[in-house]
């Protein structure tokens, strides 16, 4: 397998490249990122190629030049703009136009046979009538009032889905939220505050994905020949209140209508990434994606829970329990 990975400088991209470089069946990884160079030494078998995917000329040079030269057979596309407050044509170009351009260049390519697109579980519409389990047939969120962050992701997802049935083998992975720093996780940013406000009377179920499981799912999709949409859930399914407790934060239920102005104020004054309007339905109705299709066809099952932070007293308690069990 000779793989081209976009979004190589993100935490997920770096972990995926490490995983692929250390696996026996991957001969070469062509890592693509926006930054001029990677901030760490490269593994053997990894080549870094700085590329601005919003520039059609650079995409053409990458796919018709470097990819052909290195005999790339699989593309893993993960480059998406992470900041939720950014908007405009440049952001749309990175999220959607770049995806479309990549796909068009890959169609009828002499060496590329497979295209794996990392999409997001946030593309699903969460409503009171469709809460709980979301399979691949669940409705998508076409709310025109949704933030660009979300609309772009849905457009990119559907752009890739429109190429199903063509010469390219395509897998779209709708991944649960990767709970990790600098990965664009809204929940991570929400939980980074010492005080977490949540809607009074609601405690929805959430599913979060660890970096290790996300990498395992993407690598499994790259190796597979199955095509279509796959939900990629994580190993942690828990209520919002429990997620707040796991991160040792103060949980304060607040009447729903007050949350938008309070979090708007927080974003405006402290510059946090968390947007309540983006998470409003998720904080009321929840939604756990069903990974049965990925389990059956890709052989992916989540097995790496998120490493939740532990308070000092909890660590001490666990250590004392361990010592006691060792003693007996």
């Amino acid at each position, binding site marked *: 397998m000779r793989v081209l990975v976009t979004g190589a400088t993100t935490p997920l991209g770096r972990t995926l490249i490490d995983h692929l470089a250390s696996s026996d069946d991957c001969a070469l990884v062509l890592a693509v990122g926006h930054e001029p160079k990677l901030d760490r030494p490269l593994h053997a078998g990894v080549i870094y190629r700085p590329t601005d995917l919003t520039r059609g000329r650079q995409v053409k040079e990458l796919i018709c030049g470097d990819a052909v030269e290195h005999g790339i057979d699989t593309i893993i596309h993960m480059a998406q703009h992470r900041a939720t407050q950014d908007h405009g044509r440049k952001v749309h170009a990175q999220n959607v136009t770049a995806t479309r351009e990549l796909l068009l260049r890959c169609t009828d390519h002499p060496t590329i046979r497979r295209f794996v697109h990392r999409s997001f579980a946030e593309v699903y519409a969460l409503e*009171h009538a469709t809460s*709980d*389990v979301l399979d691949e047939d669940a409705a998508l969120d076409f709310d025109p009032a949704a933030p660009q962050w979300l609309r772009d992701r849905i457009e990119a997802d559907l752009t890739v889905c429109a190429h199903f049935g063509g010469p390219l083998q395509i897998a779209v992975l709708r991944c649960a939220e990767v709970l990790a720093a600098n990965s664009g996780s809204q929940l991570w940013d929400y939980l980074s505050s010492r005080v977490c406000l949540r809607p009074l009377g*609601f405690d929805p179920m959430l599913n979060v994905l660890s970096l290790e499981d996300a990498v395992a799912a993407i690598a499994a999709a790259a190796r597979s020949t199955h095509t279509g949409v796959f939900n990629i859930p994580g190993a942690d399914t828990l209520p919002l209140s429990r997620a707040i407790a*796991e991160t040792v934060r103060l949980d304060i239920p607040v009447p729903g209508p007050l949350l938008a102005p309070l979090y708007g104020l927080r974003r405006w004054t402290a510059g946090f990434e968390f947007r309540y309007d983006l998470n409003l339905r998720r904080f009321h109705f929840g939604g756990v994606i069903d990974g*049965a299709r990925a389990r059956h066809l890709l052989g992916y099952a989540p097995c790496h829970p998120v490493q939740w932070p532990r308070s000092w007293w909890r660590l001490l308690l666990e250590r004392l329990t361990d010592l006691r069990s060792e003693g007996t």
Partner: protein
Amino acid sequence: MDTSTFARLARQATFHDAGHGYDMFGLHPPTLAAMVSAGAPLYDWYFRVDSQGIEHVPATGAAILVANHGGVLPVDAAMMCLDILRRTDPPRIPRAIADHFVPRLPFISTLFARLGAVSGTRANVRALLEQGELIAIWPEGVTGPAKSFKDRYRIKEWRVGFAELAIRYHVPVVPVAIVGAEESWPLGLKLRGLHVFGSPYLPVPATPLPLPTHYHIRYGEPLHLNGAVHRKSDDPDAIANAATRVQVALERLLDETLRARRGVFR
């Protein structure tokens, strides 16, 4: 059986932990155990639930329980779920299929989820049946609690979705007659103009509290709808026929139970 035994049963019941003590729908056995303990006096002393035919509820594997529905609030559903949890061995937690407006209700939605209730979406039901869960459905839907007192124990509207599920997933259907509930807390008035949190109307009960009627719960013999119709689950006629077969079985069970009881409060 004392309340602590009830609570222990709830904790011992089969449960698919999704990693943090909750299942993927939000069921939380400790909360269920607490509510089971709290509801035990209602079951034992207030409604004096009399139950027969629990042996018809499969001890393992997926099955669909189909019951009649009445009363302002779903007290009948709560008593039936308590009865199954108490009398099945090993204890099974019935997964009540709630109406679509329930997830919009603050506090209620969370409490129902912790007790095992689930929205009746296709994906939810499929996931539950694939996990081998026991599903409880009230095909009358909101028309059940909306019935007038004179229409008690008369099935008016009968949804057929459960029959499609039973045929598609090859699971037995157990009809359950609940007698006592439809006289316990009759509907006085329907405020149709008030759709609080998306509910179809605001119910005003005829009595401030449910009356202490004597509950009788009867489980009928399981019906295997596949064997009866030999047709596909997407054939509307086959589904309608299967649903009618269950309705007839439930009405017969209701009639027998009503004839057998000595009085509403006895």
